[in-house]
């Protein structure tokens, strides 16, 4: 019998097909760990048919698809599997929302959204999904390396 690198989960969410090395950034986007975090398993550089990938398994928590879609920023081909009683109850591919709020910091140091005394969050419009291009809602600058700008 093949040995599983990380155990199956009874109930929860599995995020599969994350580009290798990006699992930690995915966790950061999902604000994990938080105080009431359940058990989370992370596997990095897992061999698969189409090369290496990362996998994240979150037990006893079904992630809200809208929240999870934000990970398309760094893992555009990721799949979300909702597990109930060891079975995949729902499966969908991430879909990037049209607006990204509070996740990516603007690369322009003089952008008003980077000023700490203003009551606004960093906010980006998605102008192209493949290849991904986002533009700051405030100053209209496009960050070159989005993953480097994730808060």
């Amino acid at each position: 019998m093949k040995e599983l690198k990380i155990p199956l989960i009874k109930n929860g969410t599995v995020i599969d097909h994350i580009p290798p090395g990006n699992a930690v950034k995915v966790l950061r986007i999902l604000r994990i760990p938080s105080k009431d975090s359940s058990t989370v398993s992370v596997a990095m550089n897992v061999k698969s048919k189409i090369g290496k990938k990362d996998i994240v398994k979150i037990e006893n928590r079904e992630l809200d698809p809208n929240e999870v879609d934000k990970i398309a920023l760094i893992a555009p081909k990721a799949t979300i599997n909702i597990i109930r009683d060891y079975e995949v109850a729902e499966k969908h591919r991430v879909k990037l929302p049209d607006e990204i709020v509070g996740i990516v910091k603007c690369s322009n140091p003089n952008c008003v959204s980077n000023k700490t005394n203003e009551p606004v969050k960093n906010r980006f419009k998605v102008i192209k999904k493949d290849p991904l291009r986002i533009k700051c809602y405030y100053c209209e600058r496009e960050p070159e390396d989005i993953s480097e700008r994730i808060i």
Partner: protein
Amino acid sequence: MSFFLIGMNFEGKDIISIKDCSKKEINFILNYAKKMIPYAKGEKFKDFLKGKVLSSLFFEPSTRTRLSFESAMNRLGGRVIGFSDPGGTSLKKGESLADTIRMADSYSDSIVIRHPQEGAARLAAEFSDAPVLNAGDGAGRHPTQCLLDLFTIFTEKKQIENNNVILLGDLKYGRTVHSLAYALSLYGAELTFVSPNSLKMPKEVVNECVELGIKPVQTSNLEKVIKSADVLYVTRIQRERFPDAEEYNRVVGSYQINKDLLENSKKDLIVMHPLPRVTEINPEIDGTDKALYFKQAFNGVPIRMALLSLVMGGKL
């Protein structure tokens, strides 16, 4: 261009970036501004905006933009409150821009803002119910300048399309040329970007032009391209962009607009400049028919009258 565009309603609209306006809307504004010319010159008077108050918030120095906005509001019969130096305001006490805007919103019917930070006008619009007009935010956008530049070409050449426009000078940092390149591309104008190699038009601006179907010519040699130009838009090259004085002097010298250079140009070429100029246009050009930069500065008044009137619901 048709003047009467049914359903064109600007009342309450923020003017933050030229990219917020469709070509139809720009056409409407330009035609509306044309009707404002006799009012801007003081030849006619009608108080379209009687009883309205404009907040003029200039967090950075400005001559033309501030004065032309204030002139525009006065010519329309409205009143202006505000400041041209944030030194005497609560900002010095650490008040956020958002709070300053909330206050100005409650005191006035529209807000004009110039601010040193990029995106400040968009933020202002978020916190104001009254329409916000961006008078320049940092190195970012300056839509009313862009509109007055388009207006100058439109009134002088009768159309914007089918003109060969040279944008010259500091195309990397110049605030006005980025929006102008985009807007001219909307109209399908031919574009030529002339700059020293170190101050070339940013790639994303060139890409935007290409996405709109325009392939700009890029060169550092002005003499080679001046012959076929209909519009020469000159910008200032700043000393601090160069590591040494010698290089700066060489570049500035090669882009100085004088009578010799313009000898090879079309008879009806127009020379524009957002001003202030330093040495890039020789004063010997000032008295010629080609010199449009002072008229361009005046055009700031009818364009801003049109915008103020439209966003505050004034009826011509």
